[in-house]
């Protein structure tokens, strides 16, 4: 990705500064997270994996990356 301005999102409840108008694919690559057994919500709505490449994030989006952990 070429030099670009940055933007601010809320990621799993914490503020993160990430490259501007990045896609979810881009975000995951940026965070070095493999697309496997995860779910992503943007502003409380689930984004299906099929849209990760086309779905671009906006300033102040609230993004949640969710996975399965040990539980009973």
């Amino acid at each position: 990705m070429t030099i670009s301005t940055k933007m601010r999102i809320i990621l799993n409840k914490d503020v993160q500064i990430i490259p501007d108008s990045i896609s979810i694919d881009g975000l995951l690559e940026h965070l070095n997270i493999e697309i496997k057994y995860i779910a992503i919500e943007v502003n409380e709505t689930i984004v299906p994996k099929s849209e990760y490449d086309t779905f671009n994030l906006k300033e102040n989006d609230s993004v949640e990356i969710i996975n399965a952990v040990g539980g009973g």
Partner: protein
Amino acid sequence: MSKLTLNDKSYNSRLIVGTGKYKDLEETKQAILNSGAEMVTVAIRRMNIGQDKSLPNLLDYLDPKIFTILPNTAGCYNAKDAVRTCQLAAEILEGEKLVKLEVLGDEKTLYPNVTETLKAAEQLVKDDFKIMVYTTDDHIVAKELENIGCIAIMPLASPIGSGLGIQNEYNLLTIKENSTVPIIVDAGVGTASDASKVMELGCDGVLMNTAIACAKDPLLMATAMKKAVESGYDAYHAGRIPKKFHASASSPKEGNVCD
């Protein structure tokens, strides 16, 4: 032991185990292997972003192609949160819609909230989820949940993690007597005999986590629980002797050299 069928898949093991509270993922996996469980529960949580990427993930240890993953809604106190959690679970597990629904009443007792549980179940059935539902030992509510379309009823033996064992045999027997779907007792088992007793009541399976994960030796307790569930199942089907107030000799009276 006959097979247990859940969501069109049949299982040799009637023990379902949780994956929480273990020292590490290696211990988790070893304990599960010792328990013989083929279905394991998982919780749905935000990813720990800071986490070192070299750290393996639970589902790398418990391959969903080998184990049936049963995501639960632990931590949800109302129907809306539980439904949302199930949708996230389906997304995480590539469309798998088998879930363990639990909607709790309070943090201190983790006792089910049956009214919210009923609401959530109705919604989730509309969304095609296959629901195994954690509930109280109230057989009227259990039947309502079955009528709504839940595929398994999971009444508690006693509070989650309490280790108090079966508090109310009568209610569990009544639930089993009135239901046509599998009854899998969930929560409260403390030791092996608790698990055998659940099966001796005629229940179809047992789900546990704390009893194994928090035992001094989780791997050995996992082995114990595997045998306990099998022994209780076999004993139920072998038809136990009736309880009698008076004794009955095992050795013959005939030919007694002392007569």
